[in-house]
Each structure stands twice: as C-alpha cells, then as structure tokens.
C-alpha cells in the first residue's frame, strides 16, 4: 500500500462549483484544491452545504452541477459513481446505509476486485481482518451484514476500514468523528495522518473543532449557507473556538 514515499503530483480540484437541487441553489461558487498527501478541513454549521459538496464530488444523483471537477487536471464531472470510485475517489458517508443481505467481507471483496485490487482469497481475508483490527472493530465484523445493526461509531469505523482496503487517491471523510469516543477519535486521527503520509489527499468534514486538536491541516475552509466564507491555516481555528462559526457569517 505504501510506495516508498514518492508523492504523486495528483490534485483534486473543485472550480467555481454551483450546485442545485431542483430549482433550489445549494452551493455557490465553491472552489478548493487538494493535493496528494494534504489534509484539508471543511467546517461549518449544520445545513451549510458540506455534505452536499461531498456527495457532488462522489457523483451521487439528484444534483445539477455547474463548474469544474478535476482529477489530475482531467474533468471527471461526467463520470458515474462507479467510475469515480475506480478512478480513486472515496467518500466515507455521513450516514452509511445498511445492507442486511450482504456480508461485510463479501462486499469488501467485490469492491476491492472492482477497484482493481485482485488478491487471492486467503490473503484478502488476512488483510481485511488486520484492517478491521486496525480501525478498532473486532473479528465478528468480518461476517456481519454491511452496517446492519452497527452503532454510529461502528459504522464510521467500517467506513475507515473500507477506505484503507480500497486505497483511493483522495478521500472525503464526512463527520468521521461522530459517535466515536475519545480513544476512537485518536485512533481515527492516527489513521488519517498515516493515510496522508502515504500520499492520499484527504478532505475532512466536521463541525466539531475538537477533532482538529490532533491534526495539522494544510487548509481550513468554513462554509455557511452554501458558500465558503473563510479559508486559511491553523490560525482561524482559535477564532472559531472563541466565536463559533457565526464570526465568519458577518463578513458576508
């Protein structure tokens, strides 16, 4: 999975994105750029459009999109969800659906094969078991139906497990900390750091400034009402902690 530390020149770019759901505009002129190995953070109150942006990048249906979506300078806005996944884009869902008739391992195997990772069955089993352990899920999650009956935190861990197994180039993590206790958050953070160190570009969506205590993101974006109202480095965090997100709203 790690290839000797040669950082690729890959970039995930969003340029001037306007997104509509029916006639209603949800996102206004969103632009951001995530490079390989970089951690970017997207914050904002509920309803500010963070998940909409994540869903649009993944290609989920139901949105009309204007603007550019580029992966290594190539437009991917016409690609289907499946094609985007195979091209190396991963979304850890905010609310992962439950699929009660498919076992976690079978699902993972099929997904791995679809994304071009063809390893022999017993090796896959070993790998997946290791990964489950790494994210903090015990062995029974190998055979359990996908997300079925999982607690909120367990679903998040399962998303992380999928992320590690599928080895994408860019990962969008939508509220990966919700439902996790302090120890699990620390574990998740370490995984995110390790993945970035391997060369993955990460967009972390959260509305909890706590998570960022342990990370040093390259850039932080604050969203409000469908717009990016502030972006910057670590320095804007302290302002958020003191004044909340509304501090940036007034600037509009």
């Amino acid at each position, binding site marked *: 999975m790690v290839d000797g530390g040669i950082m690729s020149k890959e970039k995930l770019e969003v340029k001037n994105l306007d997104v509509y759901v029916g006639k209603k505009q949800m996102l206004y002129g969103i632009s951001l750029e995530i490079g390989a190995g970089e951690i970017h953070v997207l914050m904002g109150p509920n309803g500010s459009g963070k998940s909409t942006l994540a869903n649009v990048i993944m290609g989920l249906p139901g949105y009309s999109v204007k603007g550019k979506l580029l992966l290594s300078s190539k437009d991917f806005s016409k690609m289907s969800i499946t094609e985007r996944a195979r091209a190396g884009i991963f979304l850890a869902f905010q609310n992962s*659906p439950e699929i009660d008739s498919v076992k976690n391992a079978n699902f993972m195997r099929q997904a791995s094969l679809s994304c071009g990772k063809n390893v022999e069955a017993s090796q896959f089993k070993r790998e997946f078991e290791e990964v489950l352990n790494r994210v903090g899920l015990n062995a029974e999650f190998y055979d359990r139906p996908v997300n079925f009956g999982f607690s909120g935190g367990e679903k998040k861990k399962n998303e992380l497990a999928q992320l590690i197994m599928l080895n994408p180039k860019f990962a969008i993590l939508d509220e990966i900390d919700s439902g996790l206790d302090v120890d699990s958050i620390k574990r998740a953070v370490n995984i995110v750091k390790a993945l970035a160190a391997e060369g993955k570009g990460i967009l972390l969506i959260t509305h909890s400034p706590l998570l960022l205590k342990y990370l040093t993101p390259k850039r932080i974006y604050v969203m409000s009402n469908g717009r990016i109202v502030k972006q910057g480095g670590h320095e804007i965090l302290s302002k958020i902690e003191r004044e909340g997100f509304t501090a940036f709203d007034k600037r509009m």
Partner: protein
Amino acid sequence: MLNKDLVVEISKSKKEPEWMLQIRLRALELFLKTPLPTWQIPSLKDLDFDSISYFNPQNIRATSWEELPSDLKRVYKKMGLPEAEQRWLGGTIAQYQSEGIYAKLKEEWQRKGVIFCSLDDAVKKYPELVRKHFANVVPVDDNKFTLLHYAVWSGGSFLYVPRGVEVNFPMQTYFFMKDKREGQFEHTIIIAEEGASVQYIEGCSAPVYDANSLHSAVVEVYAKDNSGVRYSTVQNWSKNVYNLNTKRAIIGKNALMEWVGGSLGAKVSMLYPSTVLAGEGACASHLTITLASKGTVKDGGAKVIHLAPHTRSTIISKSICIGDGHGVYRGLVKIAKGAYDSVSNARCDSLLIGRHAKSDTFPYSDIQETKGTSFTHEASAGRISEKQLEYMMSRGIREQDAMMLYVSGFITPVLKEIPLEYAIELNRFIQIEMEGSIG
C-alpha cells in the same frame, strides 16, 4: 381425449394390477365432475384438458437444436452449455455421472436393502409395499389436479429405506431414468422407516424445454419415527408450462423433514409443499427460492400442520420478481389442540426488481393450542433501495454487479442448502435473467 378408454389404455400398457386401475377410474370420474378452483391468482383459463397429450412414453421433446425456442437457446449459450448438452436438456435427462460410479452406488444401496426404482416398476415388483403407501399421504380427491393426476399418472420414483438404514449419499432421480423423463404426471413415494435417513434430489437448474404444458405431479413422503428425509428439487421448466404439483409429508415422533426447493421456470406454478407433524418432537423446515420472471405467476408457499406437542417448524421463502413477474406466497400454519409447546417461525421476503413486479403475501395462521406455543411470521417486500445501490457503486461496484451481489446475499439462507451443482447453475441462471431486465 381425456376419457375412460385412455385411462384403461394407460393402465393396460403398464400391465398394472386391478386395484391401481380402479383408483385411476375413480379419480377420472371425480375429476370430470369437479370445477376448476377459483381462489388462486394465476389464471388457469387457458388450460384445455382435452388438447393435452396424456400418454406418450416417448414424449414430445425437441431432439434437434433447431426445434428449441429461441429464448431457451439464448440462455443455454449464456450458461455456456455445449450444443450437445443443449440438445439433451431439450430432450431427455442425461447422466452427470459415469456408468461405473452409478453401478457402485447401486450395489451399495441394494446391499442395505434400499429400494430405488421407478414407481411403474415398483407397482409390479413390490405391490404390497406400494399399495400400502400409495395415495395415503395425498388422497386422490385432495384437489382438482390430484384427481387428474391419479387418473393418468405415469413415471416417478419409489424410494424405500428400511429401518435404521442411513443413506449417506444423495439419491438422485437420474440414476435410473436415463432415457425416459416424464415430468408431467410423475408420482413419487419416499418412505423412510424408523430411524432411517435419506436425501433425495431431483430436477434441473438449467432450463428444460417441455412441449407438454401441464404438469401435475404428486410427491408423498413418509418419515416415520426418528427418521430424516431431505427432499431437494429445482425446477426450471420452459415458459409454456403450468406446474401444479402437490407435495406432502407426514412425519412421526422426532422425525425431521426438510423441503428445499428452487422454482425458477414455468409460466404458472402453484406449489405448496406441506408437512404434517404427527408425532411428538417432529421438526419440519421449508426453504424455497422462487424466481418470477417476465410474464410468469408463481403462486407458492408452505403448509405446516402441528398435530403433536413439542414440534417445530421453520419456513423461509425468498422470492425475486423480475419484469412483470408476480410472486405470491400462501402460507398455512396450524397448531392444533393438544400440540402444546410447539414453535413455528416463518420468514418470507420478496425482492421486486422489475418496475411492474408484483408481490402478494397471504400467511394464514390458526392457533388452537396456546399452551407453550409460539408462532411468528415476518415478511417484507420492496426493492433494493437507491441509497444501498449508490453506496455499493461508490465503492466501485457496477450497478449490475451491485444488484447481483445483493440478490446473492438475499437468497443465501436457502441457496446454501441446495446441492452444490444445482446451486451454482441456479445462481448463474438468476444472473442471466436479471441481466436481461436491468439496464
């Protein structure tokens, strides 16, 4: 022409004893007087009893590749079956095993006293044994189609396992029906004496062409005290067939009966395997996968009657409806007075894949004995949700593959009980049918 002369001719050509001819004649008389049932969902109005050929030891089968319907040819191609086999499937049942293996198995079961031959032969070779067990589990006048059956029945198996004998390889019908397969009006009797156990497999997962459009077979199973019988069947008749069978088992103390079935083909099918738990501690399990493809109606289910205490039953029915296929589940669970401490659990799920697919569920329960008893039934109907599909696709899985993955998982609880060679073909067949209707 369905009349007395035909029935007499059938009996004479088989050289049957007088008592069998009498049963046939009585059945015919009642059949001609009984009207068609009206409670069912599939329409039976196209059935023309007079135009059906009832007696043809050679069968009207396709013997050349050209004769096969084109949709069948397409399916065979996709399943990767060579032309020779295709011709076979369009005609007669062949052997999966070599003569040598067959001979060895035959020697072994004969040594143990197991009788396994065609029922036609058994009537002549073991008349008393057959007479004792014929038409007892399924009486002649059970329904309109058993009346027809008992008048014109032909072919089918007779399997008898003596006391205490455990047969540990499955008994398959093609062991002796090498060239003649008369699917229409087969009568099968399976008898497991006290302490015996046996597994019986029949059918075919790959589509089989049959110009004969009415099938009305009967299966009678006797599982006596402490015995175990597993009856596995997969049918995939061509789309002109009406498959209206009656299958029933009566089981004794601590006996175990398992019905495992895959119903893939036919235009209309009405199948309600039933088990009567007559002895204390008896257990029954009914597992079915039903595929209602385009233009078909699958009216099926299970009937379980608890007559004795400490009995258990489990029903799992998984149905997939493609195109405008219509799946119907009809269940009857009865816990009679005196059957205390009995437990019955039923689970039926319908997956509606086609835009015009339909599903009906009629699970009837009649609980007369409430001391220590418990009955639960759960059912669901609907499609794979968009969210679930999108999720799978966001992991790089193509929509078609995601559907197939879901469907495979959906049928797994039953599929894992179906004999392996059938299961693989069954899975492949469902895949092909689904490909034909998605995208």
